[in-house]
């Protein structure tokens, strides 16, 4: 598919149709325009809901960042259920979410935002958990940190274990960082799907979790 992207070129805003296809056809442009309009409508809806919830002010101040991003994630997940984005266009899709809402983000990031640092993708992953659990783990900053490690999100069992652990330890983001880094390094080259639950838990327990043993 093709994603419509608004780009700043020499101070002027230009529309670019980005695609992984070799040839951009008129049909692609039409579909991209439709997709783009739907997405803008969803973002507008999110802004409206968040203002009603008092999580976001009309000036763009996030009163409750966790609720803001949880809501963003939930609506995007709903949008993606109705509008399929192919695997190869996923990155373009997540990048294209930046710059659509002045309330959610005052300024569009200047450089490229990597997939592990994409707020919208992190919000989408976070919104797959129940909200009360999300709150128990920690603030939005903690979630961003957790979800930025690919190795920790690839197996739901691992993420569940980690969440449980973090709730138990009640750590701040900075305090949790060594634990997250160690786990990520440990599981980076492992295909955990071949491990039984018991084997996975053993490996998690065996990891030398400095200063974080319960």
């Amino acid at each position: 598919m093709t994603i419509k992207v608004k780009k700043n070129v020499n101070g002027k805003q230009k529309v670019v149709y980005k695609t992984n296809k070799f040839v951009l056809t008129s049909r692609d442009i039409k579909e991209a325009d439709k997709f783009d309009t739907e997405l803008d409508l969803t973002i507008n809806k999110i802004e409206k809901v968040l203002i009603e919830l008092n999580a976001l002010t009309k000036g763009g101040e996030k009163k409750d960042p966790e609720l803001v991003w949880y809501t963003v994630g939930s609506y995007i997940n709903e949008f993606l259920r109705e509008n399929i984005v192919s695997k190869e266009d996923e990155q373009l899709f997540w990048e294209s979410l930046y710059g659509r809402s002045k309330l959610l983000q005052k300024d569009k990031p200047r450089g490229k935002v990597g997939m592990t640092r994409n707020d919208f993708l992190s919000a989408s992953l976070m919104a797959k958990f129940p909200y009360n659990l999300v709150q128990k783990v920690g603030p939005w900053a903690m979630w961003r940190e957790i979800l930025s490690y690919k190795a920790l999100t690839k197996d739901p069992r691992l993420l569940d274990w980690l969440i449980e652990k973090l709730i138990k330890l009640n750590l701040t983001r900075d305090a949790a960082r060594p634990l997250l880094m160690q786990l990520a390094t440990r599981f980076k080259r492992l295909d955990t799907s071949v491990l039984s639950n018991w084997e996975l838990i053993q490996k998690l327990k065996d990891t030398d979790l400095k200063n974080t043993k319960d």
Partner: protein
Amino acid sequence: MNTFRQLRNDLRDIEAIADGYKTKIGHDLWLSDGLQKDAVQNSWDARIDKKHGTDWECGFSIIPFAGNDALCISDSGTTGLNGTKFITEEELASILIRNEKGEDLAYFLNSNWSAKSAEEGGRRGRGKTLFLAASKDKRIFFESLRNKDNSYVFGELYIDTDKQVKFKPFYDQEAKDKFFENSANKFKPLAKYGTRIFIINPENSVKNTVLSGNIIKFISESRWETIKKYQAKIFVDTEEGRKFATLPYWYENSPKDIQGRTYPLEIIKENTHYRVKQLVLRYTQNLDIPEAIKGIAIQRNGMTIQRIQSSELVHDEGIDDIYGWVEMETEPLGQEMGSICEGPEHFDFSWTVKPAKYLRDYIRLRIRDFAKEFKITGEQIKKNKAQRLAEEEAIKSLIPLFKKLGLTGKNIGKKLRKKTKRKADELLRLSAQEIEFPRDNRRVNYGEKIKGTFVIPINEFHKDFRVLIKVFVVSDSGETKVVEEKELNLKNGRGSRVGQDDISVTENEFKKGGYTFRAKMVSLEDTNDNLPDGTRIEKGTILYDRINIKFFVESEPTESGKSPIRFESRPRSDKSFLFEWESDGDNGYVIYYNEIHPRIKPLIGLSEDGSDKLTEYLMEQAAIIAFQIKLEEDLGNNASDDPDFNRIIKSKNIDAVWHIFLKKFSEFIWDANS
């Protein structure tokens, strides 16, 4: 045994050089044009005040000298022919071999020697040969008053009966005596620093252009920048008295009835340091631009080397009404244009060679911007839907050919992609060497098979490993189909196949779109062994996952990036226009087709069948054009990655071009239709 020096027939060499000028200049008065260009350039390069050209003057007259009429080319405010006053041939040889600056006299008297710098005009030592060519007697005299030592030089340069160019220099008082002797005491030797050259018994065409003043036109057209910026004085003594070369109206600042735009200092090609000082484009609707001014004057060192016609760069009606000029930055663009791309006669450039190619593409893009801004070209005709679809389909069908030829759009393709070395083989690995698709471009249609859809595990450790091998296909939308998963005890060496002999692509199993054939090997046991990167091999360790082979079901490859070509239709009642193409800068090329040409018109605006016919026609013609584009690009690089094209480039055998095109065309059409 004695050593002999090869004796050359210098007369033949002079004729050959003159022939070169004749071919390049291409009009009847080529000798006068070539002569004025070289003479003025040499004189301008020798000016004493390099910054402002103060007191510099150069002129052409017909006077009696050495018992004949002579064309006298004189200059003042110049340095004169400085350098060693050599006496013997050995002394002269050592000066030339040292190739030092300031030896103007030695260089002037000898052919193919020059020590001029990058910013100067003639650096190949050819211009003076043209002086001899312009003399019916093949004889010239010269005199020079030098600013370095205030000494006077006079001499004669001629072709002797043995066909060798010979010369006799005289210095100081002896030189003055010789001058009086040859001028029959009618003229005095030079009193100001400068040089005079007397071309004895000049060719009639040369004599006539001077006496009639027609030579002024050539001077004004090539030296207008020097005249404009330095108020340079270049005179011609005509039958009607002395006349000066003037600035043509077309190059004045803000001429009436002419619109224009100046594109200031800018880089002409991304990731290079080639810059132009300025490009000036002008347009007039009401005035008729003279043929000699038409086009974009390519200026180097204040001189117009060549004018490239706007209509050669951009194929559109009305483009001919655009003219202008481009001034290059001396370093590196001007220097490389002069030394690599410019012809020895200073009348043209090799436009397929870099950086000339970059400059031409840059001018083309700016002309297009300019034409758009001033609404010079006609409105683009709206294409009908069938026509648009036909163009898109034609491009899709051409993709395998573009890939094969390495023709690419912006920022893609093998030319711009950083080449990465293949990683070294790992000790535990998978091989999928036998996979085979029905087509080179990996398109697979329903009912077809992909053969060899298996991997062979390889173990170069000296022990067995218990592993799981997963062979699977992932669609672009993320769905995974397992081909085979197998647990095995992998012994040292090559294991047995995992996967299937082939995969049948059916409508039930595969939706239209992109897929990736993948495989990975995972350890099923905890060990104390380590992988080369130090990772311990334990249960779950991914031992190998580098098999990623993309294919496309019922669709053309969705390569990233842009197509290197796009089609544009143009209705023109010009019989000679069926197809044309031009570079679109970094975006590739635009191929124009004449939509009212009797061959194309019936294919447009028809039913879906009509669009198929147009697709086929556009595809076939664009394939031929793609070969030409590829060959032109490779000519610029003086080498090709395609062996056939490389052979043509190296052998310079143009007879072979059409045969190779037809062979490649046939191969492409064969694949496209099978």
